[in-house]
């Protein structure tokens, strides 16, 4: 194991610990959010996003981080996103967090893990065909929200964080 792999393992252990502590890896929590009954996973995810967003962009000012995001390919982002969502609604676990579900004893996650390995293999099999026919439809390149609307990124961050905090307030008021 090289150093990079050890860092990966440590980072994963920390993240898995926090995921389990917040009880977000469970089917009932994941599906609860999709049924608008329990917004725990949205609270967790959005909290991680706003903290990470402020931190990453702050350190980016000093050139201490390297941004690494994916290009916009509308056809793939939308179709793939929808497909993922449909599968997620059946499984009730996410690729990253279902290992955590297994870790706390929810062994039906094993079926999901197996299914995902098969799904990845299937994608590899069909990749040459997809390459020829559909991949790249609606390509708009590496685009950020501030670039898209033409404003300073800190303005977007302030609006985003304010919006998320307002949403949190609303969740708490509604007891979600």
């Amino acid at each position, binding site marked *: 194991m090289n150093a990079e792999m050890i860092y990966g393992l440590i*980072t994963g252990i920390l993240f898995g610990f926090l995921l389990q502590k917040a009880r977000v890896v469970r089917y009932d929590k994941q599906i609860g959010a999709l049924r608008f009954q329990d917004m725990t996973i949205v609270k967790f995810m959005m909290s991680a996003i706003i903290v990470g967003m402020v931190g990453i962009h702050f350190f980016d000012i000093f050139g201490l981080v390297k941004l690494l995001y994916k290009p916009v390919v509308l056809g793939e982002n939308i179709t793939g996103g929808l497909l993922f969502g449909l599968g997620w609604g059946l499984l009730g676990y996410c690729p990253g967090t279902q290992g955590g579900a297994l870790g706390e004893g929810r062994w039906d996650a094993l079926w999901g893990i197996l299914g995902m390995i098969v799904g990845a293999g299937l994608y590899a099999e069909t990749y040459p065909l997809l390459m020829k026919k559909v991949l790249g439809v609606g390509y708009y390149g590496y685009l950020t929200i501030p670039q898209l609307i033409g404003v300073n990124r800190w303005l977007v961050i302030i609006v985003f964080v304010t919006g998320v905090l307002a949403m949190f307030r609303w969740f708490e008021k509604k007891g979600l």
Partner: protein
Amino acid sequence: MEQKKVDDGGWSPYIAGGLSGLVIIVSVLWTGQFFGASTSFVRSAGMLEKILEPERVAQLEYFIRYLPKFDWQLMFVSGIFLGSLIAALLSGSFKWQGVPDMWAERFGTNPALRGIVAFIGGVIAMYGARLADGCPSGHGLSGMIQLAVSGLIAMVFFFVGGIIMTRLVYFGGNRK
């Protein structure tokens, strides 16, 4: 019916989520790695397929792009399992369960039915994640943190797909 509380040693999702945001910042500062998970399933599929059909794997373009080997992310995903296991054991919230409560309320406690649906969900979700080029970790957390348009689009459609599927699955409420 009496509402029974399974465990109450959990942390606030705001706190645990915010701490996860800090873990992401440290990870990016230290090793340059943003969170992601679905590529690991491609590498795992490649590694398993290699045992059965090494020539086929060597030919497939997708496995050349994502070599079947352990890397930062695969260790990260494995770490999530360990971290969750540690947290669950320390807090006594580990529970061996093959059918989630919400699922059982609607479809009964047959683990085979749950297993089949979970497996199919996993296949669809991973195929979609690879087509979208990311999952709720890669597009959701990492993409949104960087204000990437691709992350925002994918995230919206993850939830749209998920909401549609749970509407279908839980049509008419929890009871059979």
